[in-house]
């Protein structure tokens, strides 16, 4: 046997060393350097971080990203769970077909979703406004989503895209909830909400934690959707996100050092949130 496992692992080990470990080490150095393009860099200590924290754009990006992330977790996930619970009812016909349909939008890349929504959110004749006008009486004839309601637009597009994706995870988790336990609870007089809270929720908690984590990682790194939808940061930078801020500094302004400092800030934020999430899901 001897070397066999290492032969099998060699592609991973090789790409790990070259394209992960080294860049990771390099990014730590870059974060403390002032650079112009890929080949000029000078050590500047904490200057990048200092400049970043003094840059109002950073705080705008942080605010927008946090808002979007909060919305993803508090709107998207409950909707996904609700849809999963409905689909999981015993005796429901067409479950596989519904699951397939709801899942479809998550296959569309963010760039292409942005392309579709850039027209569907048109202020007068966009599909969304035409629909809302026909459902809500008195809905204004003109509703400038992409000018004045940037965050709402982003949240709307991501709802279409991700609710079904998250639902698939919840639905898989619900398979492990025993129908006997639910029936027993019902006979003991537990209503639907109590059954959900005391029987279903404890059973799906691990998957719930996993989905929250996935959602956090995805939302905090939002970039393509606003970048293509708004052709950049959008009016008054209302669509500026942390990764867009990173992209603009690193690749429009060619400052890879500053971009690395932003990258590390994002990474620390993400790991912090992951730790908090883990703590929370363990304690209860």
């Amino acid at each position, binding site marked *: *046997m001897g070397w066999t496992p290492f032969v099998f692992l060699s592609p991973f080990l090789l790409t790990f060393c*070259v394209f992960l470990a080294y860049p990771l080490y390099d*990014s730590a150095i870059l974060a403390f350097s002032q650079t112009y393009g*890929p080949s000029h860099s000078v050590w500047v200590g904490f200057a990048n971080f200092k400049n970043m924290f003094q840059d109002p754009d950073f705080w705008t990006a942080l605010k927008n990203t946090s808002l979007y992330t909060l919305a993803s977790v508090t709107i998207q996930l409950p909707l996904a769970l609700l849809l999963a619970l409905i689909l999981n009812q015993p005796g429901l016909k067409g479950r596989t077909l519904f699951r397939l349909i*709801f899942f479809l939008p998550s296959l569309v890349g963010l760039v292409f979703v942005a*392309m579709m929504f850039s027209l569907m959110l048109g202020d007068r004749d966009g599909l969304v406004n035409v629909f809302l006008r026909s459902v809500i009486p008195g809905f204004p004839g003109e509703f400038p989503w992409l000018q004045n309601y940037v965050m709402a637009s982003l949240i709307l597009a991501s709802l279409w895209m991700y609710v079904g994706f998250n639902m698939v995870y919840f639905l898989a*988790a619900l398979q492990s909830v025993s129908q006997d336990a639910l029936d027993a609870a019902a006979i003991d007089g537990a209503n639907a909400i109590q059954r959900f809270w005391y029987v279903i929720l404890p059973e799906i908690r691990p998957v719930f934690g996993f989905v929250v984590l996935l959602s956090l990682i995805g939302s905090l790194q939002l970039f393509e959707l606003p970048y*293509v939808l708004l052709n950049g940061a959008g009016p008054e930078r209302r669509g500026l996100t942390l990764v867009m801020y990173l*992209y603009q500094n690193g690749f429009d302004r060619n400052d*890879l050092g500053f971009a690395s400092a932003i990258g590390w800030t994002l990474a620390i934020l993400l790991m912090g949130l992951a730790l908090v999430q883990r703590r929370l899901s363990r304690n209860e």
Partner: protein
Amino acid sequence: MNDAAQIRKRKELFRKGITYAFLLLAAVVTLVPFAWLICASIKDKDVFFQYMFLPVGHGFLGIDWKSLTLEYYKDLFGSTDFNFGRSLLNSIFYASTTATLSTLFCAMGGYALAKFQFKGRETITTMVLGCLIIPGSLLLAPSYQLLYHLGLLDSYAGLILPALAPAFGIYLFRQSMLNSVPTDLLEAARIDGCGEYRIFFTVVLPLVRPMIGAFLLITFLGCWNNFIGPQIIFQTPEKYPLAVEIAQLKGLYSTNYGLLMAGTAISVAPVMILFLFLQKEFIAGLTSGAVKG
């Protein structure tokens, strides 16, 4: 007694009605943007905003067929101002090469971690798990610098090489090998004198076939939809994959809606078709990491 049973039955029926009505509504909301996209890509300029979906008229099925056109699709592939056809080929090449190779390499790596006892196994497994929490955007700037020094900027090698053995795939295959490859079977094959590499290809791979299907599709999708990577790496427009090309077109032809939607439709269709073939494996593979832990 009879009354009570009837009331319960009626309640049940009512509940069912509400359930299906809700699901149907949700399905319509989900599907309408797709239908709208296709309609938008074949509607003539003159009636583009006049009708939400297809133009109404006196033709067959009440549709004004004369206002429909395939002009946008012809323009997409015929125009010399941009390279849409080339981008489509680029995307197919990029996504299928990366998907095939990384599925093979991840299966190999996952197999080694799941089924071999060797010094360093724990360390490597921890490394794999560690990789999972590193956000990709942290690596953008240093990877750009690395590719610059390796001379791999503006090349598909620069895009594909770093993605050949993602930790996420190693982890998925490790889980799937632990669950579905019996160690006894491997021992039996070894006693029969079967070489390690033959065992891997003829015994192990067929056992994890669902995961292979799922991971192929996951990677294909990831590459097909990848934007930030190629956006940073490529300078030559002929090398752009679809995601980058479409974003460029949006900047250049911001008011040629039909053209933009035709391009989007062509970009979305292949992954939809692929998914319909592999959907069972895909969803099972996607959720296996989470559910089995």
